[in-house]
């Protein structure tokens, strides 16, 4: 009993000391950076207050201590704070560099050779059996490549409408290959087509849906893309009714890249959510601040 009581007292003392030292350093920092003019002003106010109470000693102590701190430590402290600012700026620079790297990775991980070869093989065979269809797939492939090859990418790729257009080209190609095994549904209201949206995120999600959800499923299924505004959030959802997600499968470069870019672009205001609905399949949702982006644009 005795020992535990002593422990409690000791704990309380430690906490009290840490609290006091915290406040002291806060005061110290403030004195170090405050302008002389303001410091004089506080001296005057403090003198007046304690003068009225007829006990000027604390005021004198305050003036003495703050004067001493200002003279002795002001310069050093100021330098420290400047250094902290510089570190912060360096951190921002690091962030910018990471964003650049993530963008580069997104650019490079574009056209999968497997997809390209299969599509070219398809066009080659359609030229003989169904030339109009060949021309159609060929045109879609050109649209798709224009948006995915870094050298070809247009600068205005950053709207949701543009991203939807590119995804449609990709899906049209996949539909020519998978035929009735692939269903497509888009629910993107027209007014959202002008909303800014980072490039290559929608495509990555759709490719994942097809590659991991529908292609392995014998009877195939449907990919649906839905965009809506919920409060101040733009919510873009890619759902499929495929084979679902294996909890032990790696989440892949694509999703990691989306997550990284969202974090760098929007911090904690954006997120990528993956869910498996009760009916099976998988749903990936990107949530971005909507209003904020409109102001930025």
């Amino acid at each position, binding site marked *: 009993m005795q020992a535990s009581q002593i422990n409690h007292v000791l*704990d309380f003392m430690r906490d009290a000391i840490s609290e006091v030292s915290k406040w002291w350093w806060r005061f110290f920092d403030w004195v170090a950076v405050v302008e002389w003019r303001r410091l004089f002003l506080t001296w005057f106010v403090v003198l007046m207050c304690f003068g009225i109470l007829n006990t000027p000693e604390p005021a004198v102590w305050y003036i003495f201590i703050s004067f001493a701190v200002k003279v002795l430590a002001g310069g050093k402290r100021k330098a420290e704070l400047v250094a902290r600012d510089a570190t912060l700026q360096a951190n921002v620079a690091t962030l910018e560099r990471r964003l650049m790297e993530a963008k580069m990775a997104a650019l490079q991980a574009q056209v999968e050779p497997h997809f390209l070869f299969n599509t070219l093989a398809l066009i080659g065979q359609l030229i*003989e059996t169904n030339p109009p269809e060949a021309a159609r797939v060929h045109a879609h492939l050109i649209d798709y490549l224009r948006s995915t090859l870094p050298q070809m990418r247009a600068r205005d790729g950053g709207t949701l409408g543009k991203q939807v257009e590119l995804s449609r080209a990709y899906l049209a190609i996949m539909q020519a290959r998978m035929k009735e095994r692939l269903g497509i549904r888009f629910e993107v209201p027209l007014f959202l087509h002008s909303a800014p949206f980072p490039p290559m995120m929608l495509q990555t999600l759709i490719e994942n849906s097809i590659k991991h959800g529908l292609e392995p499923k014998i009877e195939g299924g449907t990919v649906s893309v839905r965009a809506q505004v919920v409060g101040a959030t733009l919510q873009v959802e890619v759902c499929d009714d495929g084979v679902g997600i294996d909890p032990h*499968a790696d*989440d892949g470069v694509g999703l*990691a890249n989306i*997550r990284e870019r969202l974090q760098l672009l929007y911090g904690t205001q954006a997120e990528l959510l993956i*869910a498996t609905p009760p009916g099976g399949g998988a749903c990936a949702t990107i949530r971005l601040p909507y209003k904020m982006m409109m102001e930025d644009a």
Partner: protein
Amino acid sequence: MNSAAITALIADDEAPMRDLLRARLSSVWPELQIVAEAANGVQAVELGQRHRPDIAFLDIRMPGLSGIEAARQLYTHSHIVFATAYDQYALDAFQQGALDYLLKPVTAERLATTCARLRTRLEAQRDAKLVASPDANRDTDRDTSVPPQDIGQQLARLTALLENKGQAKPQTGYLRWIQAQVGASLRMVSTREVLFFQSDEKYTRVQTATSEFLIRKTLKELLDELDPDEFWRIHRSTLVRVDAIADVSRDVRGRQMLRLKNYAGEALEVSRNHSYLFQQM
């Protein structure tokens, strides 16, 4: 040798590819009878076992069963020819082994070569059967005939190869997704997003940078299934993501406290038993 027509099966999940191969075959080898067409691996095995075709043309990437897996069930009574558009690892393996393969889109010349080879092989086989000697189905030309057990071995090797490399996804066997019930649906939280797990009486709390979930899996189960290099146990009730650790400091009571990057919430206590994890080098 024309007692019975030579039969074949085509398996490809993409209808246009089946059409092309059928069209090409009819011009290169008109007598060949296509007895069945399959749109996935399971169907290929089923039809292959029912019709017992002389030749099976199998696409490698198919839903259900891959072409290679299907081949492992069919090679004993059918000659296997693989078709693929782009499968680097498989191509390497084919070039080393003696398995037949076609590159898509299939060109007439290439198909003609393959068909000629198949024809000689099938004829040799029939002659051997006529002689009825069990040893005679071994051809003199090693290039055109391979004993079935060799093919079996090659297929097994190919399967292993594709599982390891072809998918470009090393399956480490560690848990990669945390499944948390949120409303009616199951939220899949990538372990890369998780900052820490903390046991909380009946549940385990999963904390990410933006949200928190409760799951039923115990910390002990998680500890067994997660990658030990990715998550460290720092306390009886806490598993923390190593990458997320910002710094470790001692509080006034001398406890080691861990702060996390991108997380403004509480600091995590490191228990004495685990403090060896955080020592100066």
